[in-house]
């Protein structure tokens, strides 16, 4: 199952569960507020941050406009540095290449650093099905893997779990003493992972940025696991979405000024690794082979369509942390690898609006996502485009389709509209006996579940205005 296919439980059930999970909502409140504040502080401290954002946006726009050119250049550069490149049209091709490679090279254990792309294409399951053991080495991903769950945030995948829950999980799965001390939990994971790193035959990473001019792969991590994954095992496989390119190292520098600041509020992550090719003769460490898997999986189609701007995204997660909807329901309710405002666009863009018709509607269009996006993606407009596309494809409840048609029809006939207004006014005043209404029939019961509805004014605006003019 790929990360772009919804789970069996319907969207409203997932939302309902999330809203009733007090622990989840408390964790989300704390973490999103902390990241939002840290991001603001980091941007205030960055001289001329608005100009840097504009610059970054121009780089993204330029790169994607000439993506074919830069991809060819990137492939040439990687190959010149001694790496192999495979173009995967979709998840299946990407997974097949990696599993075949593992089989051919006799790989028994794969160690991974955090990669949302591999979640998107379901690579772990494909490898496990081929009899290869897969171990996540990012602490949060390690926790998620032990729990058999999915990430709920693109930067901090285990944001929905408390230290206490992690302690219970480690106790159950690893037999450690129950504790909620983060340092002790970290030490447990660390000692378990050391041995994994040494045993692993293949390291799999994502790619934060690929540099076209040099064939360099840039990885940003805070735990140093990315460096072990790419230097200890004899094979390194880098999984890269085709849009994740920058033309040159100069451009990379602009992106790196923004990525950590917007993600966690750090100036830079603890580790920023630039990897060019496999180990060269005379070098003490590094893999014997480097394979870069360029994954399309709907990206070319997206680039050609109206949602192309979503490919500017550098996966910082700022729009998740700022979003008032994400903050209430968390990542799992979205059901996709990519949650939050960016997920509500990128998921239907890559996976098809049919399977994800609700996601573009899970937004009040308040505009915070557009405000915080480091590359200024106009997310509300993209959400509106998706709503439009979904509506045209018939993904809309009947009451809404009929209701809106009727409303628009009446609005264009002023006499009728005023008559309708007078009727609605009389009705609401009659039913509510002049007071606000506490209950309305479905679908408006969704409003009165938590809000009263006012009786409509006795006199409409036009009448009141005419009376005043007399």
């Amino acid at each position, binding site marked *: 199952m790929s990360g772009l296919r919804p789970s069996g439980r319907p969207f*409203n059930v997932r*939302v*309902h569960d999330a*809203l009733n999970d007090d622990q989840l909502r408390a964790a989300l409140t704390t973490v999103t507020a902390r990241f939002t504040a840290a991001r603001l502080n980091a941007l205030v401290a960055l001289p001329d941050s608005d100009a840097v954002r504009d610059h970054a946006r121009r780089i993204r726009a330029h790169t994607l406009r000439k993506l074919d050119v830069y991809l060819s250049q990137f492939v040439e550069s990687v190959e010149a540095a001694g790496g192999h490149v495979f173009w995967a049209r979709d998840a299946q091709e990407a997974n097949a290449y990696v599993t075949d490679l593992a089989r051919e090279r006799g790989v028994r254990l794969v160690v991974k650093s955090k990669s949302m792309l591999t979640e998107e294409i379901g690579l772990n399951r494909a490898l496990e099905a081929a009899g290869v053991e897969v171990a996540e080495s990012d602490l949060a991903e390690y926790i998620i893997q032990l729990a058999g769950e999915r990430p709920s945030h693109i930067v901090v995948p285990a944001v929905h779990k408390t230290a206490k829950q992690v302690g219970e999980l480690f106790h159950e799965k690893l037999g450690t003493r129950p504790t909620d001390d983060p340092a002790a939990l970290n030490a447990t994971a660390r000692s378990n992972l050391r041995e994994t790193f040494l045993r692993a035959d293949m390291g799999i990473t994502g790619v934060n940025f690929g540099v076209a001019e040099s064939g360099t792969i840039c990885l940003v991590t805070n735990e140093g696991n990315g460096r072990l994954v790419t230097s200890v095992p004899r094979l390194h496989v880098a999984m890269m979405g085709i849009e994740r390119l920058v033309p040159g190292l100069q451009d990379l520098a602009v992106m790196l000024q923004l990525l950590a600041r917007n993600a966690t509020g750090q100036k830079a992550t603890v580790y920023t690794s630039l990897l060019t090719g496999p180990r060269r003769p005379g070098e003490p460490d590094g893999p014997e082979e480097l394979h870069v898997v360029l994954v399309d999986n709907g990206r070319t189609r997206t680039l050609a369509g109206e949602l192309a701007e979503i490919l500017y995204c550098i996966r910082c997660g700022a729009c998740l942390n700022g979003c*008032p*909807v994400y903050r*209430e*329901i968390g990542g799992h309710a979205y059901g996709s690898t990519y949650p939050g405002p960016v997920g509500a666009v990128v998921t239907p863009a890559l996976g098809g609006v049919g399977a994800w018709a609700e996601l573009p*509607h*899970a*937004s*009040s*269009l*308040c*505009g*915070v996502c*557009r*405000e915080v996006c480091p590359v200024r993606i106009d997310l509300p407009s993209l959400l509106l485009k998706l709503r439009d596309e979904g509506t045209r494809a018939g993904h809309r409840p009947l009451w*809404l389709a009929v209701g809106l048609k009727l409303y*628009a029809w009446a*609005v*264009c006939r002023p006499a009728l509209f005023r008559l309708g207004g007078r009727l609605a006014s009389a009705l609401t005043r009659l039913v509510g006996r002049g007071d*606000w209404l506490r209950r309305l029939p479905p*679908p*408006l019961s*969704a*409003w009165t*579940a*938590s*809000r*009263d*509805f*006012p009786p409509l004014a006795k006199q409409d605006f036009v009448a009141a205005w005419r009376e005043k003019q007399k």
Partner: protein
Amino acid sequence: MARHTLDLLDGSEGAVVLPSGSCADMLVHHYPRLMADDPVYGPKATALSKRVYEFSQYVVDVLGVKDVGARHDGRVVYHPSCHLLRGLGVDSQARNLLANVEGVEVVEPEEAKTCCGFGGLFAVKMGDISSAMLQRKLDNLLATEADVLTGCDMSCLLHMSGGLRRRDKALRVMHLAELLRGDAP
């Protein structure tokens, strides 16, 4: 519907002033985009967008008035509605008008710029999420112990009024225009 509205307003002259930031944002930003490919209504939408103002924006930016000589004794909290704030970029106008009201104490809530959860049909289509957002907003507003909640968007104010009635609290809701006119809360 947009074409009908454009035809109606086409026959008018001068400024079009709206008591809601979201409606003004619709006419200023979304109509031109909606009609971009229409040879007749596209230019109409663009022309209209240049003479549409939200109420506080019109009073301060066009009329040049920051003090209307109003009086209100009490503690007031202002909600900067999303489309007014992030859509039209209007914020200081209403705050200036409010600050110049005699006798008023303006207080700022936590997470002042966060959406109240209305979002038009979102409040019905995604009623549970909308309600959760509203409750958080009301918690923050009530914590200020203000007497009056004011703002420049009828729909957000309607939404928060509806929620406040279930809380049985003393916070009253008034549009900024009502407050400036000196209406009783």
